[in-house]
């Protein structure tokens, strides 16, 4: 079990701001097998894992794809607060545990009630988003750099460079 204030989202915040922000999070327990959010559903909350192991999964063309294990300390769904859209993956519990949740409506209320704290939280959200983006781009580059021979043969190996190009260019 970790403390909410030990997660990356709170890194560098002063005591008073951290306390004000921690107070608006809601705690929730979960059971093994429970789905905390579904791919495709409207993402309306940020989730911080405090305890337990979970997994992120996605529907693939040939069944479910395991994207990643999720450990305590991980911040998920931060785009829900700043750029709402459908969830791009499902979050399922493998153990029992606990999460801290901040929904969009509460975030907006925080802007009105405690603007200074909300502004600082927004910058923290941006920082976590930048870290996530940098690690996603590293992962994408690694996938594209993988030696495709001998996994691909003949014609498939010829198509690979153009696929890699499309995966990077705008």
């Amino acid at each position, binding site marked *: 079990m970790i403390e909410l204030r030990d997660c990356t989202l709170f890194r560098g915040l002063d005591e008073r701001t951290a306390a004000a922000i921690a107070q608006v999070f809601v705690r929730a327990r979960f059971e093994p097998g429970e789905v905390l959010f579904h791919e495709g559903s409207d993402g309306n909350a940020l989730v911080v894992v405090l305890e337990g192991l979970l997994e992120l999964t996605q529907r693939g063309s040939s069944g479910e794809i395991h994207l990643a294990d999720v450990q305590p300390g991980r911040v998920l769904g931060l785009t829900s607060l700043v750029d709402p859209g459908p969830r791009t993956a499902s979050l399922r519990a493998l153990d029992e545990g606990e999460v801290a949740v901040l929904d969009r409506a509460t975030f907006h209320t925080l802007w009105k009630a405690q603007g200074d704290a909300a502004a600082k939280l927004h910058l923290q959200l*941006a920082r976590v*988003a930048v870290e996530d983006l940098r690690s996603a781009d590293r992962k994408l580059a690694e996938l594209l750099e993988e030696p495709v021979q001998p996994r691909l043969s003949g014609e498939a190996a010829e198509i690979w460079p153009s696929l890699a190009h499309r995966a990077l260019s705008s």
Partner: protein
Amino acid sequence: MSSTDNSGPSSLPEALLTGPLMDGAPLAHRRGLLQALPYKEAPAGTTLFRQGDSGDAMWILVSGSVSLTTCPGEQPIELDRAHAGDIFGELAVISPAARTARAVTLEDSSFLLLERRAFQRLLEARSPAGEALLRYLTQRICRRLRRSDARIALVSDALAGADAAWLRQRARSLEGL
């Protein structure tokens, strides 16, 4: 190298003042923020920064155009192209790290530079234009994050199939992202 010219731009592109960059902030505040920034000019063909350089500023393109490229293999790949009113290098203004692309001017260009420290001072002062800019940048970064996540999923999926017809289909899907 690019030169610094403190006289500032003769005029700011309309897109910078009324576009999404500081959406929601009063026009006078937007103009005030931009006018306080250092101004630079660079001739065509200037490398503004290289992949791996330490970055501490966001570039706002006042005039001209800039190509952003990465070089994962032998061939450089153009990630994006910025035109007057566009921004680039924006991750550096949020948190320090090495540049992930190379930026080269395609024609004579001029810029405003927002350094991380200057941005932090704006936010500490609760500047409405600064906060509007933070909202815009966060949204833009989240969209980039979603696109990268979708690309990872498609490339992983492509590697799982691995025959030519399958790869062609996945490559087409990547174009739609």
